[in-house]
């Protein structure tokens, strides 16, 4: 009786218990078909082993300087967010943060902020990188939320429904979206 492929594969990984291991070993000396199967697995494994990943050092250095940059914002904890936006939207987002963040909040915090950078991608969209100590960002978000007089709508979603994230948040003009739907 030949062992199944899974057992052979596990045997190769040294994951078969003592007595069974012996049985398989013996079987392999007798059964050509199983010997062939396991040789094929060994071959695949060797090919995988020969495959080397690209050099990591440059990437490690980039990561290190990035982390060091974050670390130098006095506090050790940090928060990082990446949002890919088309340029006008990026400008708007920056504007939003500058107007709301700086004017209403930062004045009262007396902190040096170097938390935003914009990188333009070759594809034309740009990336806004927001980095700030987490406590302060929470305060920024709070200020966006509160803005001195609280204008808030709380909506209870229907119960016993589970929601799922299906992609990035999106925003359309209603007219254009309906047209897309018709397609």
């Amino acid at each position, binding site marked *: 009786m030949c062992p199944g492929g899974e057992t*052979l594969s*596990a045997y190769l*990984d040294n*994951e078969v218990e003592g007595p069974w291991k012996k049985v398989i070993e013996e079987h392999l000396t007798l059964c050509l078909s199983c010997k062939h199967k396991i040789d094929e697995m060994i071959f695949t494994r060797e090919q995988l082993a020969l495959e080397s990943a*690209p050099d990591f050092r440059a990437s490690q250095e*980039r990561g290190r300087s990035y982390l060091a940059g974050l670390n130098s914002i006095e506090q050790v904890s940090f928060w990082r967010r990446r949002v890919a936006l088309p340029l006008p939207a990026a400008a708007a987002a920056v504007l939003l943060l500058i107007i709301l963040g700086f004017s209403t909040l930062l004045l009262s915090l007396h902190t040096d902020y170097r938390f935003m950078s914009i990188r333009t991608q070759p594809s034309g969209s740009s990336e806004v990188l927001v980095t700030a100590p987490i406590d302060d960002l929470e305060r920024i978000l709070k200020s966006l939320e509160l803005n001195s007089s609280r204008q808030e709508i709380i909506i209870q979603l229907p119960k016993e429904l589970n929601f799922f994230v299906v992609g990035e948040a999106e925003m359309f003009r209603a007219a254009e979206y309906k047209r897309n739907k018709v397609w």
Partner: protein
Amino acid sequence: MKIDQGLFEEAYETLYPLIHKLSYHITGDVEQAEDLCHEAFIKYFERKKPLPDINQTKYWLIRVVKNISLNYEKKKFRQRKAIEKLKRSAPLTADSAEHEYIKKETISRIQRALDKIPYRLRMAVVLKEYAGLNYKEIGAILGISEGNVKIRIFRARQRLAQILKEETEHVSWR
């Protein structure tokens, strides 16, 4: 609370090569691997409480890579579908698809084969072959039983062997 700089440095120094390697073999893309890797370490940094030893840190980071890479995988799937759709609807704008193809060409045939097998099989075999973990450890990271790990690794090997074989035949016919 302050994070222990020494412990973090040590983890970064020691584990970056492994995490980078795993990220690369899972995503099959150098840039994505770097992003994934950085994201994982940032998450570790954000933990504030460093894990007491390097081994636990390793498992923790691998688990994070596994979690984030699933999002990459979903995104890749959507992109692939979008490219296919683009190709069908507008052959003239297939420039970017072609670019994608050329980029893929520079990736080795082994990595390409890994790319072709389903994510859950790839994840298991990568953790086995490139992180040298045993079934128990892999099971713990993926949240599945050892028996399941055994099956996934076997199927991954089967598929990889088949893909590599087909490719060889294809080449020899030309």
